[in-house]
């Protein structure tokens, strides 16, 4: 199973660029990884989160803490269910 996503740009003369991608485990930002060895770093991966062990982007790393996207979605969905329940009386 692939660990990374994949991004490819195909121009008239063939492949212009291709790179692996990693999705931030906290905000889902897609980070484009540099092709080794001389590729330019487009977005740097900070490091895997110490808690959830998923790759996180620099911005989430700087915020600190660990709130995986899955947990955030569960919270949003729970809040909406409560709102609906309250609205129905």
């Amino acid at each position, binding site marked *: 199973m692939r660990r990374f996503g994949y*991004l490819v*740009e195909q121009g008239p003369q063939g492949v212009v660029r291709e790179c692996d991608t990693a999705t931030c485990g906290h905000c*889902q930002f897609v980070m484009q990884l540099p092709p080794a060895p001389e590729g330019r770093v487009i977005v740097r991966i900070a490091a895997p989160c110490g808690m959830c062990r998923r790759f996180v982007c620099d911005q989430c790393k700087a915020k600190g803490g660990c709130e995986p996207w899955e947990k955030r979605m569960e919270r949003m969905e729970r809040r909406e269910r409560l709102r609906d329940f309250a609205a129905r009386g």
Partner: protein
Amino acid sequence: MGRYAANLNRTLSTTQSLGSIGQGGSLRRHRWIDIVLGCDGTPGDTAVRAAIQRCTALGTSTAVTPVALDPGDTACSALAGHNHTVEPTYTGGAVLLQLVFNQRSTVRWFAAPGEELVCPATSANGIGIQTPVAPSLSGWAAVVFEE
């Protein structure tokens, strides 16, 4: 869980979205697996920047019917649309993917299993495709998603 493909098309605009996919009647999470972006206007040499961003309202658009990749699947509940007359309400800072490419190029991104872009099952939540830098040419996006 079924897979669906939606083809979004419009004359690219720096102020109007190329298209969006979001929650429909019954709320179900959907996951973007594969995105293909391109320009099918007269070949030129201009840059296109596409930003794929979360939104909390889908705006007003022409409906696109996503096609089930497995004909045995039921119709999807997600709503796809293009040619927005009212823009989606984008979530500030929630750009998930930025793609910069030449107008002559086609760019494709697909997610590793478990790394898809997921929309929560809350009303009107979705993802839209904007083109903050773009020539006034016909552009399209093919999105494969799962729900």
